[in-house]
């Protein structure tokens, strides 16, 4: 398994509010990858995404291996819950952190099984047999409307409120996380990314690039370049996990 991650500021923003995490992937038990897209004024967005990763990471590492092995998904959810409550407390205490929050998409891989915990509109895709499939569902106003059959996907893509997310880590006392478990196979490629990538390039472009046969690092660079070429209006972050 090869995993590479990259987070860039894009072309139009003053600071990068995204944070990513790529753990050592030399076969250790606790192998996981995170993308987080922070929000809030001034530096609060950056603080939110990096703190969430930090708290989460620390929590996962603090757990005994046996516990983690048997309760992988629970441990991930607990870590996320902890990150949420700590961020929320901070935002209540300090004026400058008022309203801060972050999306959070973590993919952990253990024994060729993928565990995802997910809040917000960052995404995890699985590329298998030349087909790209989104494993997470965006917690966004428009995607919830799509789910209800009230908006078509194309309407959702041009809806003025398409940027509004319905869940975030740190904005409320409690957070609901979605979880996904999926068996992995040799040859799969996973990609985690923030909306800075997916609003600039469509799924087809990602699928074509992942079909190109290039190495993970090259593909990552090309995808990010393409997002920048198309405007780079937001921070762009992605992690590619290559199981070929």
């Amino acid at each position, binding site marked *: 398994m090869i995993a590479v991650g990259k987070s860039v500021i894009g072309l139009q923003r003053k600071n990068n509010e995204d944070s990513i995490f790529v753990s050592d992937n030399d076969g250790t038990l606790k192998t996981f990858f995170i993308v987080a897209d922070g929000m809030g004024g001034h530096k609060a967005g950056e603080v939110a995404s990096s703190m969430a990763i930090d708290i989460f990471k620390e929590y996962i590492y603090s757990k005994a291996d046996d516990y983690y092995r048997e309760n992988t998904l*629970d441990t991930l959810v607990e870590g996320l819950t902890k990150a949420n409550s700590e961020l929320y407390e901070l935002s209540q205490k300090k004026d400058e952190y008022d309203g801060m929050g972050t999306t959070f998409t973590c993919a952990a891989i253990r024994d060729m099984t993928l565990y995802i915990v997910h809040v917000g509109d960052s995404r995890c895709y699985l590329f298998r047999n030349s087909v790209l499939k989104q494993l997470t569902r965006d917690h966004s106003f*428009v995607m919830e409307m799509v789910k209800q059959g009230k908006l078509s996907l194309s309407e*959702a893509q041009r809806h003025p409120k398409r940027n509004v*997310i319905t869940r975030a880590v740190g904005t409320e006392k409690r957070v609901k996380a979605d979880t996904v478990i999926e068996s992995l196979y040799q040859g799969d490629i996973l990609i985690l990314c923030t909306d800075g990538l997916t609003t600039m390039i469509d799924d087809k472009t990602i699928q074509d690039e992942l079909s190109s046969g290039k190495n993970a690092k090259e593909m990552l660079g090309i995808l990010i370049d393409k997002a920048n070429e198309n405007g780079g209006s937001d921070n762009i972050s992605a992690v590619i996990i290559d199981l070929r």
Partner: protein
Amino acid sequence: MTLNVGTILGGRYEIQEKIGTGGMAVVYRGHDNKLERNVTIKVMKEEFTGDPNFKNRFNTEARSAARLSHPNIQSIYDVGEDNGIYYIVMEYIHGDSLKHVIQEKAPFDEITTLSITVQMAAALSHAHKKGVIHRDIKPQNILVSVDGTIKITDFGIARTADVSTATVTTNAVGSVYYFSPEQARGGYVDEKSDIYSLGITVFEMLTGHVPFDGNNSVAIALKHLNSELPDIRQFNPNVSDIIISIVKKATEKRKDDRYDSIDDMLSDLEKAITFAKDKKTTGGKLNPGTAAASVIAPKTAKAEDMSSADGSGATKIGLNSVSNADENKNDKIKVEIPGGKKADGSKPSAFEKYNKSMKISKDDDYENDNYEDDDYKDMKVVKRGRNKYDTVKKQDYMKNNKRKSNNYDNNNYEDDEDEFYRRKEKKTIIAAIVTALIIIGIISFFGAKLFTGGALFSGNSQVTVPNFTGMTIDDAKSKADKLGLKINDNDDEYSDYDEGTVLSQETDEGEKVAKGTEINVAVSKGKKTFSMPDVVNESKDDAINKITSLGGSKPEIQYDYSDTIDEGIVMEQNPAAQTELDSSERIILVVSKGQENSKIVVPEFVGKDISTVKSEIDDAGLSLGNISKKDSDAVKDKVISQSVASGTEVEKGTSVDFVISSGTQPEDNTQDNTNDNTDNNTNDNTENNNKDNTKNDNTKTDNDSNTQTTTSDNAEKSLAFTIEAPSSFDDKNSVSVKMLEIVNGNTVSVVYNQTKTSADFPFDVSIKGTGKVEMQLYIDNVYQWSKKVDFSEGN
């Protein structure tokens, strides 16, 4: 970020006290140290201002809002930016938001409600006539001053927030309660969207409740789309039919069914007032004796304020609407004669002249606005005719400009209403023209100097080439003629400069050339303009071609439903036909999506019970296709995949196939089902929100190949849960410990409920149950954790 008290913005506005926080801005009471008066200062939140396009939108919207001048609209005095802080300076209003007043005093009686509504409608009427749509009408944006006057604030500001920055909507963001269906859908927002939101606000005043409520923004938005308006009399039995029908008409789901314009609504409201007054004087059932203003006036209102509004309140309302009608009439006159006085004669607390030292436009030359307003009458023509300016006007501008500088130097503030109005109307394009003309003027002046200089050597066979750039081609030619040079002006191009202006010369100024030499110059053909064609009723593609072939920018397409216009046909265009445009201007076409409801967007059925699907599928406008079973972890009869993915647009009546769970565990959920999505073990730790398993390519074959294993165990088994102490007891000795069992994500039962003291913790609780469920722990009703458990693993 909060600004400290004493912070001075733009060199004059002092922050005095934070008075509130809205969705987009923090609101302060402030003081204008120059004009010595109280002001309200809205400082935009940083998360919005970080967006690169924010500045443009902010300036555009704030300026269009500043053009509004109406007794029921909070006046905008100034907008500016100071060190990255974007602020709007507004009239200070002593009072409270309508939201607070509703929270304290609703339901209002009819006369109070109508009095407020008429004022809001009058304000909207004024704004709509000026082409400004509010987009975010809600009681939070409506102020009730201590004398009972209603003021709408934040016109158009909602639009500045349409940024790619992610924001969370929670219940705290009030707008969704007042959202029109088209706003929920992301459709075309126009005047009728304001009418809808106003209708919702009236509902709330009459009842004390918003009509559509829900757990989250999506649920509320869906109700705006689908649910019928609740019966007003259920909350307030005294409301008369006429008012109920006004609210209903304003809040129709389809734009076509609503009032055509706010003026139509206004005239119905006036009728309703007459009716309500009659009802009251004839001793009707309607809370007799309740004074309008005594209900709505904020606590700070003085007794005499209230009494005046009490006795004459109704009369005042009448006057308000009449004066509004006057103003509407006069609006047109005002457009033609910008010097005209404000129609209703009312005067906002003070009018202020924009002043040069304000930091409206620190970074933007266009906005220096240094020209005299008296001449705006002339410019007005220019503005309307877009770019058809001529030399005469040019001279005027130059003159004006000189005078203006003097004005500024003397800091000559006058309390001049007209000045105020006209100033608000300025367009950057005019400023650009003026700037260009000043430059041309200066260049011409130096050119003339050179010319006299050059003439001294006119006896020589060699001529020093003067500067021609910036002159009109005629002036350049006559000048060249005197010097014995020739001008060759074959090179014409479009530019921002006036037609006939020399843009550049091939031979540089100062070079010596032989007499009779031809100097090649480039001459401006003026701005490339075209007359906006009428494209309504044309197909989208034809319309786009027509516009772009004339040199227009690629139109922005918005879609909306229409019962009368076929899909793909342009329904509306902005700007209107015959408007003179240049290639940079934004063009919007509204294209019909055809009849609402003829196309169906497939909803998500995955995760629902098949019996639920059967009952919902007709309502969704779809029909039930094949149902096949498959072994899965999911609860029996739950849909694990659907043949048409959610979000897909299909014809009405399309049939959708479903794969449901047999309720049996697959034999082995690890390795053998390659490429099959349905074996994904998906769970949502709190809301049983099954993952999207929409593509079910291989499900049928898999289904056949799976052996049915009946290992499910229906016998009750017990599991132990350790309950840890909560983080604090808040000085209480005992807490309630409650455990909920959630089956299928919706059936909730309390399986444990005991009072415990701090000494009891930690302790174990043993719960009996069957199958897979989710357990949630609450201590003193505060959520602690949630766990997915499988009782079949218990003992």
